[in-house]
């Protein structure tokens, strides 16, 4: 039984990893074939790094992820502090709306934001162009809930008397927040930040509906590459992304285990 379940586990892992490894393997293939390995080459990597479209969209992705994450962390942390002070009923209402973008299908979130931007532009007359502004607004919108959901539990665990003691000892509310509350909730803020950033980098569906013709994020570029089918550059790109993911996870785990904390629960997939 024990042996059997072990075999089962590794079979499922093979199922999960095999396609990725095949992709990586063929990124070194000399010919364009995706099933016949003809010879080893780094050509596709060289082509990838001189591909302006990909490099530009990588830049766009990083800018949008960074800007939207910073704003989402500020708005979300402040929101969590305010929500924590609400009574049970009000908090329930606000949290239910906060969950909406998390549980709503991404396509509905994307489409509804697109309708909003079209509406603001055509009916209200606010000059908002599809591109960077709409992408950043959309990304902030789907990132804020994750910041709140990470910070709120930390606030609840916190001993509020410490904050009150700081006030009694002569701190201004802002100073007390800065010196007492913020250090306490910092782990939550950081995991909210990391989650926001990775979701921003990875998001395709919401960006797809709100990017417009000018701004392309990396997932959108990947999508148009897969539509054109044969291009081993995409395999090279996958390999690099996979390597970066592994590297980040390894670093994150080393840093984290040195503090003796568990991260695994935080790596929650987005719907």
């Amino acid at each position, binding site marked *: 039984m024990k042996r059997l379940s072990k075999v089962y586990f590794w079979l499922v892992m093979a199922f999960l990893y095999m396609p990725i490894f095949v992709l990586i393997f063929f990124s070194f293939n000399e010919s364009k074939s995706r099933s016949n390995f003809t010879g080893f080459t780094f050509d596709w990597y060289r082509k990838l790094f001189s591909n302006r479209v990909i490099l530009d969209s990588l830049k766009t992705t990083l800018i949008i992820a960074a800007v939207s994450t910073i704003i989402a962390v500020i708005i979300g942390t402040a929101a969590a502090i305010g929500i924590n002070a609400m009574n049970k009923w009000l908090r329930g209402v606000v949290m239910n709306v906060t969950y909406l973008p998390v549980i709503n299908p991404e396509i509905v979130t994307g489409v509804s*934001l697109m309708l909003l931007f079209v509406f603001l532009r055509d009916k209200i007359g606010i000059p908002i162009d599809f591109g960077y502004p709409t992408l950043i607004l959309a990304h902030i919108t789907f990132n804020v809930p994750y910041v709140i959901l990470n910070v709120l539990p930390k606030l609840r665990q916190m001993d509020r008397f410490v904050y009150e003691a700081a006030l009694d000892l002569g701190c201004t509310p802002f100073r007390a927040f800065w010196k007492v509350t913020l250090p306490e909730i910092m782990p939550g803020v950081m995991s909210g930040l990391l989650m926001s950033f990775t979701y921003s980098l990875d998001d395709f569906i919401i960006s797809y509906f709100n990017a417009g013709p000018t701004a392309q994020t*990396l997932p959108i570029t990947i999508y148009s590459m897969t539509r054109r089918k044969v291009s081993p550059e995409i395999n090279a790109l996958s390999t690099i992304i996979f390597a970066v993911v592994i590297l980040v996870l390894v670093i994150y785990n080393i840093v984290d285990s040195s503090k003796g904390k568990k991260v695994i629960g935080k790596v929650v997939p987005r719907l």
Partner: protein
Amino acid sequence: MKSKAPSAPYLLWMAIFTIVPLGLVVYFALTTADGTFTIDNISRVGEYSGVLMHSIWLAAIATFICLVIAYPLAFYISRKPENKQRTLLMLCIIPMWMNFLLRTYAWMTLLEKNGLINRFFALFGMGPFNMINTKGAVVLGMVYNYLPFMILPLYSIMVKIDGRVIEAAQDLGANTYGVFSKVVLPLSMPGIRSGITMVFVPAISTFIISRMLGGGGNIMIGDLIDLQFLGNAYNPNLGAAISLVLMVLILLCMSITNQFDEEMEGMMI
């Protein structure tokens, strides 16, 4: 700390970017292009009931397969010593960090006519099988992409099941099946519920997997919506109506598998 004021910017943001857009979906669904009230869009969704049923069906099959694969796997992980659990779980999660377009693309290359899988079969003189652009390929793509979404909630509930409870059941004479049906299954029910939601919701609303692996013959709700907004059939009013129907469908699914909120929050901590 006792002030609600810091949440003001968020409440405003939420109103503009969450509530108003959803209101606009309802508004567009119930109006014509020039803004007069109509229920034509909603009734036109009826014309696509075939696509709707097809989507529900494929997503349900994929969810069921995910549950069957993930359940023993999650149980296996949850019975390991704690430090090992962490590594095994990490192994399940890593593929999820690859962009899902690339993961789906990988299957595109594997399943095609002269792809690796058909070449493998050819070694035994079988095939070539027609695998890409079929229903089966779409379900496979869903299972592959969303399997970790099932493993995680199952695991996070199962890890709380005390091993001594299982031993007690065995001591009291329960056989393997009895332990499963009387102890493990009831205790893991919340995990099953949230796992089903976490797989079913993205599966039913996908349009990438059906487009990349299903060819033209396996259109799903998501494809319909995309066609109305960014495709040739440009008609945001109809698109909004379909989105509304999709949302209602999912709300129905959620009300069946309730308790989702608590699960999500529990996993975030």
